[in-house]
């Protein structure tokens, strides 16, 4: 293709997006669009999969059968999200094995929040309430992103996430209204998850890359700082409602902005965790790589069995 032809295609492509048309896998797209989507969608998929671990940590110890069932269902949903996000990636011509390889080698990232340990049962509440809460704020705009498979996956993901978020908040309500020990447990979880949740919404705009292009492709509609403010403004009243205290002495309602002012985020910690030195980075990768390598003989067997079955069928057909 001549350079001009490419330019022309690119123009048409950008116009389609501007008209809010969906891009489908078979459509022509710029290589950078493809790569950016693989990167973002797989990062999202990996986050779902790695995100199963901190919650999976409490399945065997859930305090009641009802909570155990709900937690299992939630973790299953996350695996499901992972599954259709990987599928969406695969429509762009990359295999699941390649995606796993990127995760396991550290080339691909996943949400840093999952590198914190789940220390008490209340963390199941805090994760649902705060982490899923922040995730929704990140993801809702993606329901109308330009790439069709991603947008459609996001509609389903957001619906389920919002259920998880309510479920998490409900755990916190129960604890906050419980015995003093339970209330302490809830407050402690909020203390530990608050700042990492704020960091989840990404580096400050000043340090954020990819933003302009992403805006154009509708991969992003608001800046990280705007999303963070939205999250805070939404969450603080929820904490107030159940009598928990946000662990930020600088947090204050700003009448003028009609928004909360808040304290400084420890970006050193953020970058330490992103770079692989968070409390649980090594353990998370060990668990994922361990599952993958330990399961190789199983996948090989399934493949071998399928081939044998196929051969038998063919022989019978002869």
């Amino acid at each position, binding site marked *: 293709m001549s350079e001009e032809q490419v330019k022309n295609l690119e123009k048409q492509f950008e116009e389609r997006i501007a008209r809010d048309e969906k891009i489908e896998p078979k459509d022509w797209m710029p290589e950078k669009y493809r790569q950016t989507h693989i990167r973002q969608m797989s990062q999202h998929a990996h986050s779902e*999969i790695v995100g*199963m*671990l901190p919650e*999976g940590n409490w*399945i*065997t*110890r*859930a*305090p*009641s*059968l*009802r*909570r*155990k*069932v709900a937690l*299992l*269902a939630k*973790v*299953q949903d996350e*695996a*499901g999200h*992972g*599954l259709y996000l*990987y599928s969406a990636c695969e429509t762009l011509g990359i295999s699941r094995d390649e995606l796993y390889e990127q995760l396991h080698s550290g080339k691909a990232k996943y949400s840093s929040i999952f590198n914190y340990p789940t220390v008490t*049962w209340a963390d199941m509440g805090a994760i649902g309430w705060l982490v899923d809460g922040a995730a929704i704020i990140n993801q809702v705009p993606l329901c109308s992103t330009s790439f069709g498979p991603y947008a459609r996956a996001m509609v389903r993901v957001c619906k389920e996430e919002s259920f998880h978020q309510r479920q998490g908040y409900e*755990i916190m309500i*129960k*604890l906050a209204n*419980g*015995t003093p*020990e*339970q209330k302490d447990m809830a407050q402690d979880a909020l203390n530990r998850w608050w700042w990492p949740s704020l960091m989840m919404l990404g580096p400050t705009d000043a340090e954020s890359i990819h933003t302009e292009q992403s805006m154009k492709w509708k991969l992003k509609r608001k800046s990280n700082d705007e999303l963070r403010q939205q999250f805070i403004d939404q969450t603080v009243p929820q904490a107030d409602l159940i009598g928990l205290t946000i662990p930020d002495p600088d947090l204050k309602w700003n009448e003028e902005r009609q928004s909360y002012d808040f304290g400084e985020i420890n970006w050193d910690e953020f970058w330490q965790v992103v770079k692989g030195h968070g409390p649980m980075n090594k353990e998370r990768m060990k*668990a994922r790589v*361990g*599952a*993958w390598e*330990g*399961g*190789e*003989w*199983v*996948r*090989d*067997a*399934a493949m*071998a*069995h*399928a081939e*044998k079955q196929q051969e038998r069928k063919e022989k019978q057909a002869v």
Partner: protein
Amino acid sequence: MKDNLYKYILGIADNSLILGQRMGELCGHGPSLETDIACTNISLDLFGQVRSYYQYASKIAGDGRTEDDIAMLRKEREYLNVLLVEQPNNDFAYTMARHFLFDVYHFLFLTELQKSKDLTLAAIATKSLKEVSYHQRFSSDWIKRLGDGTDESQQKMQTAIDFLWTYTDELFHQTEADKAMVSEGIGVDVTKLKQAYYSKVNSILEESTLIIPESKYFQKGGKQGIHTEHMGYLLTELQYMQRAYPNMEW
């Protein structure tokens, strides 16, 4: 009667509880995303069944103990599950073999339990049967895949089957509560399921190119609350929160 019915329900429920707990351990650690989802789903089904049973048991006991008290606050010697379901997830072959050897029984058992004169139990059985029918398909498929897969998988599956085989006979032991409930038309006569069980199991093993073990010796004890040494560790986790934070709501 009440006491026997209560014990009879626990005998059923504890199997699903302990097996569900074992499956729950795997969450996020399975050989593929699809198996992770399936195992979590199976665990979910089992705990769903468990809740129905214990809620009913709680009603029968009528002493104020809730489903959670019954599930999580008994002593090890009071859990009545068969030894089979408490065996650990040594590898995926063990996990699937354990499940398969239980599922075939579970399916036959629930099919009969549907006819119970106790309408609550009959209703739980009917509801559970659909789920267990899927479990059985899932685990049988994996027996075939691993048995008739690679040399390595065949060997691993054979090892698992050989190990777990000695725990199958206990499924067909009648307890006192069993006998009492059978005579009331409430319980299932498990001794009558044995032939259909081994016939089904053997046919799947054969199809999977696996050798049917020929052990004359079997293990028992679970139904009398005498468990293997694995059980204690499983319970430390299952009970931790209820023990550490007694009398609280979650």
